[in-house]
């Protein structure tokens, strides 16, 4: 595969008053590639995402997007560049209707031009925009719920909605933070299908701590432990590394080396 890193970190470190949550991580992801980051709780996976998306700046190190230094860019600028994320705890707007949740993200990507005047004074539910939003909901199979309050959706539907919001922003790289956490087995299958179906062209990083759920979604697996990347490679290989097995299953586990 041709090396064409879309996102790259160089010795990224963050130190929360003595607690080093992410420690000198050198990470690279190519265009169109899917990478999974696994690791036990508290390994620094989400913190690493927060650094990539600009939640807070790193104490040390640099982050590059298409070779451009974005270390000091605020979150909204990174989003405009195409770095889109979802959150570990589903993060949608409960007090808006399902449809309204999609309006803000779709305005930026729909191609319908919004001047300042139109943003402030035009009707939010313009037919053209509404159609795009409804199509996004149709894909998820929840278009009938467009007008209801988001707080009335099930957790699984909220997760789908959040992913739909993320997808509607035309990501160049999509960062999914534990997209399967808290979902039922059936919902996991559905969300997994949605991700697989709509992952076209862009790169993707998925955080998960249950390995089995993401093996089929990713091409490469990174393992984080105590803030460091301790292993990376194709999934089967990584899981057989002694160090990985040690942090994941303890010293002696008698598990067969397979997924």
């Amino acid at each position, binding site marked *: 595969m041709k090396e064409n890193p879309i996102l790259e970190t160089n010795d990224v470190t963050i130190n929360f008053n003595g607690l080093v949550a992410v420690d000198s991580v050198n990470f690279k992801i190519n265009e169109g590639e899917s990478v999974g980051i696994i690791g036990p709780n508290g390994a620094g996976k989400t913190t690493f995402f927060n650094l990539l998306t600009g939640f807070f700046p790193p104490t040390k190190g640099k982050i590059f997007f298409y070779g451009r230094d974005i270390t000091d860019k605020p979150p909204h600028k990174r989003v405009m560049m195409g770095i889109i994320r979802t959150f570990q705890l589903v993060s949608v707007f409960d007090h808006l209707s399902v449809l309204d949740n999609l309006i*803000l993200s779709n305005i930026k990507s729909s191609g319908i031009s919004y001047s300042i005047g139109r943003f402030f004074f035009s009707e*939010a539910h313009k037919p053209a925009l509404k159609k795009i939003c409804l199509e996004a909901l149709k894909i998820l199979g929840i278009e009938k719920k467009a007008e209801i309050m988001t707080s009335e959706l099930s957790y699984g539907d909220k997760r789908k909605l959040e992913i739909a919001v993320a997808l509607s*922003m035309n990501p160049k790289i999509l960062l999914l933070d534990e997209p399967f956490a808290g979902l039922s087995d059936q919902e996991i299958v559905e969300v997994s299908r949605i991700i697989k179906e709509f992952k076209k062209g862009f790169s993707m990083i998925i955080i998960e701590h249950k390995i089995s759920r993401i093996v089929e979604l990713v091409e490469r697996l990174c393992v984080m432990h105590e803030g460091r990347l301790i292993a990376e490679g194709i999934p089967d290989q990584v899981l057989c590394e002694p160090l990985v097995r040690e942090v994941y299953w303890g010293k002696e586990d008698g598990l067969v080396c397979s997924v």
Partner: protein
Amino acid sequence: MIEKIRKNFLDLVIITAAFFAVLPVFGLNRTTDFIIFCIFVLGFNLLYGYMGRLSFGHMLYLGVGAYTVTLFAEHVSKNPFLAIIASICAGALIGVIIGPIIVRTTGACFALINLAFNQVGYFLALVALSRWTGGEDGMSAYFTKLGLFDFGKKPVIFGFCLFSLLLTYLILKKLISSPYGILIKSIKENEIRVKFLGYNTFKYKWVTFIISTTISAFAGALSILNYGYVTPSFIDPSRAVEVIFATLIGGAGSLYGALIGGVAYMAISNYLASYISRWEMFLGFAMLIIVFRFRKGIWGYIKDKFTRQAEGIVR
């Protein structure tokens, strides 16, 4: 489209009719006062009800409008329209200047930093600039007659204020049903999430703050038109509680709620005060009832009741 225009028109008719209905009860002077207060509540409600930022210092913005219109009439021109435009500009200007400091904060900090600025403004009007503002005595404002617009006549002021209220209502209605409206409601719920949708929330919070201060200053200017004089009570921070109460009584986060709250509060404070000298106590009880029983205010309660009924019929 036509349906929308009709619906807006219906809103305006309802509001107008409501104020004409209370006119015989409270008289021209007080009803005008109600209308002006409603404009103030609408401005406050945009910030608190829609964007979730509670300010304890909104009297400052009302006061800026009130003093600007008076000083403008005194020193520059007695044309009432120019004076009102000047005070609207002053309201926007103070939002532009102190907005970037204020909107960085949230919660208690936001409330108190507004209060702090209000204290400064109160001190300036009462003491530091008393040579110009008349200090504790305040000062009178005179305006010239412009054709039909003779603001010495109470019905003219009433009509003009009602027109102003309808205009403010329409503008706000347009704003909150736009993408911007969805944006500020989203900021109320989860500002960080909005940032991760690619919006520079600081900019939009600032704009919302400016709109709110501008409307408040407009209300301040209209008060002077109605009263004819300005005193430091127009900028007194301890009166900020009035607008907060009114918003909560009516129901934060809806335009009708703001209007109902404004009228209800004014009715209580005007009507009850003539029967019970310590009417604030009643207000305290009313507040307790609202907090425990009607969390969404009068309008929120009515709306919930009607939607539930409608759902019941469907089922």
